[in-house]
């Protein structure tokens, strides 16, 4: 049987898709159904249990604060005021509600209201664009900048800003850490030259990175009135998160199997070929492990950095809701918490899939 040899282009595109397709197309087999149902059942059960405990906990906290309020009214202002307070709390009026851990139903309601709010803002935006279309066309024709919508950002916009910031930061980390990692991995003398640098800057806290970036970017943007919060936050996120990739890349490159290096020598590959055909492919699994850690660190530090940088993302949203102290603020914070958690989980899953695609079993290959 004669088979054509496939080189890279044709062969790889299929191999690249395989694990992805396997994930997307579920295989239904009767034997699998029962265990997977059982597994799903246990997950659902544990979620229900969690919600139940949360509900009871928030109820207990609510009652404690309500009782305290009534007691206080009683001791300070007498029976009449206490009765009024009790009636007020029972009526659900927002002026006298205890402000504590919100219950699951309150959080769900907040999520609904945030989505409704998003729809209202979207409609506003569309109306604004329509209204300004004629004016903007004239402005552009005159060579001036068009007027854009500068109203409140909706929750969805906020989430998108955060994701954008994380990806920009991740890309920055990738562009800095991978090339530097490869270079210091290849040269032991450069490795020792960079070692103190890595050891000192790796443990620096996100807040300090933010301040450092702020000092520099502020001066670079001096005299420029445009909003640089996004730039500051994504650079800080990138600098915070890049260390895992840097260290892993350097380690992967410096610990390539000696057999592969011998092959490269016997085949007499040039330096460029040796790096791109032997060293990089063999260290890809470690590089991707580093990138996966980098992405999760980026998402984790993002909240603190957005808060400091006043960038319109989830971090600022959480902080503003906390400062706001409105009736449903606490519920909104919990909504943001879940959104952050779920997005972090999804990002990690994406990276895990990519990582599995590029890795090969090292021991079996030799």
């Amino acid at each position, binding site marked *: *049987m004669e*088979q054509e*040899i*496939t080189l890279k282009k044709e062969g790889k595109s299929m191999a690249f898709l395989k694990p992805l397709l396997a994930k997307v197309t579920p295989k239904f087999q009767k034997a699998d159904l029962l265990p997977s149902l059982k597994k799903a059942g246990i997950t659902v059960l544990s979620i229900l249990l969690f919600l139940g405990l949360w509900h009871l906990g928030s109820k207990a906290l609510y009652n404690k604060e309500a009782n305290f309020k009534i007691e206080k009214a009683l001791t300070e202002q007498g029976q009449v005021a206490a009765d009024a307070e009790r009636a007020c709390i029972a009526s659900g009026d927002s002026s006298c509600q205890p402000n504590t851990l919100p219950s699951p139903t309150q959080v769900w309601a907040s999520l609904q209201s945030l989505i409704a709010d998003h729809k209202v803002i979207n409609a506003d935006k569309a109306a604004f664009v329509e209204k300004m279309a004629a004016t903007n066309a004239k402005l552009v024709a005159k060579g001036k900048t068009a007027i854009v919508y500068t109203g409140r950002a909706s929750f969805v916009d906020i989430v998108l800003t955060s994701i954008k910031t994380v990806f920009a930061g991740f890309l920055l980390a990738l562009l800095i850490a991978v090339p530097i990692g490869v270079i210091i991995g290849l040269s032991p003398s450069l490795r020792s030259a960079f070692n103190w640098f890595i050891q000192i800057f790796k443990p620096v806290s996100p807040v300090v990175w933010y301040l450092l970036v702020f000092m520099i970017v502020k001066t670079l943007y001096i005299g420029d009135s445009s909003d640089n919060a996004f730039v500051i936050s994504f650079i800080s996120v990138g600098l915070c998160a890049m260390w895992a990739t840097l260290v892993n890349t350097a380690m992967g490159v410096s610990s390539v199997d000696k057999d592969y290096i*011998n092959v490269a*020598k*016997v085949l007499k590959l040039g330096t460029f070929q040796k790096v791109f055909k032997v060293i990089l492919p063999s260290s890809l699994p470690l590089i991707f492990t580093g990138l996966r850690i980098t992405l999760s660190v980026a998402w984790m530090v993002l909240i603190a950095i957005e808060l400091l940088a006043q960038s319109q993302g989830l971090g600022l949203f959480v902080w503003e809701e906390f400062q706001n102290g409105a009736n449903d603020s606490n519920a909104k914070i919990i909504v943001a918490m879940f959104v952050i958690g779920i997005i972090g989980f999804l990002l990690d899953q994406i990276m895990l899939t990519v990582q599995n695609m590029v890795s*090969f079993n090292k021991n079996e290959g*030799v």
Partner: protein
Amino acid sequence: MAYLELNNIYKTYGEGENATEVLSDINLSIEEGEFVAIVGFTGSGKTTLVNLINGLIKPTSGEVLFKGEPVVDTSHERGVIFQNYSLLPWLTVGQNVYMAVKEAFPKENKAFLKQRVNDYVAMVSLSPAINKRPKELSGGMRQRVAVARALAMNPEMIIMDEPLGALDALTRGNLQDEILNIWSQDKRTALLITNDVDEGIYMADRIIPLKPGPNATLGPEFKIDIERPRDKTALNDNANFKKTRNAIIEYLMDIGEERKSVSNETYELPDLAPKSFVA
């Protein structure tokens, strides 16, 4: 002048007090078209010797001459088949061979290179597996890929470092025949490093035992005067084969004994007597 010459080779690892001399006073000369086997115990410095000849490491003193020129670096003229196959796991069989062919024939066009890859993969009868990755292959198949990769570069000399060491007896026998087959087609110079005396006698023109290290050195050579092609089953009854085999094994055993007798540790035996069940 010999094709490959090793003159007074010494190789030391480490420095100062920790230095161990792995190879000492190695002298070897191989003629063009000859098939030479070096037989030795594991850990006797065989791989070090191979790496010296193919140019991966340099001797501490002495010189390696290939066609009269000193060996300073690896060269496409000397193809190497490694002990542990050393295939790149992220490339398919075809890509592994292609990489070598492309380096060996940088001026040829893609069609020629592809054809050469196909030919050599077919030669080791792996055409159906050309698009598989090494981890999908068995040990014997992997070693065949390594053979194809080394030969596709069209080397003038093949150096094999225990190429069949990790294989089972059956696959071993088949691959020995395959390698001999390929070798007999154009009679390239070949150097086989092995720990199997039978394999050496079956394949080589000349066998040289390597005395175990440290301070490993080559022993007296044994010529194998058996007509080619050799028949493995008939070989067992060949008087010449038996004689040579016994001589080599005796020699190797003797050095083994010599090495053992150096140890003058005495063992105290427990005072035990068999119990009598009769009385």
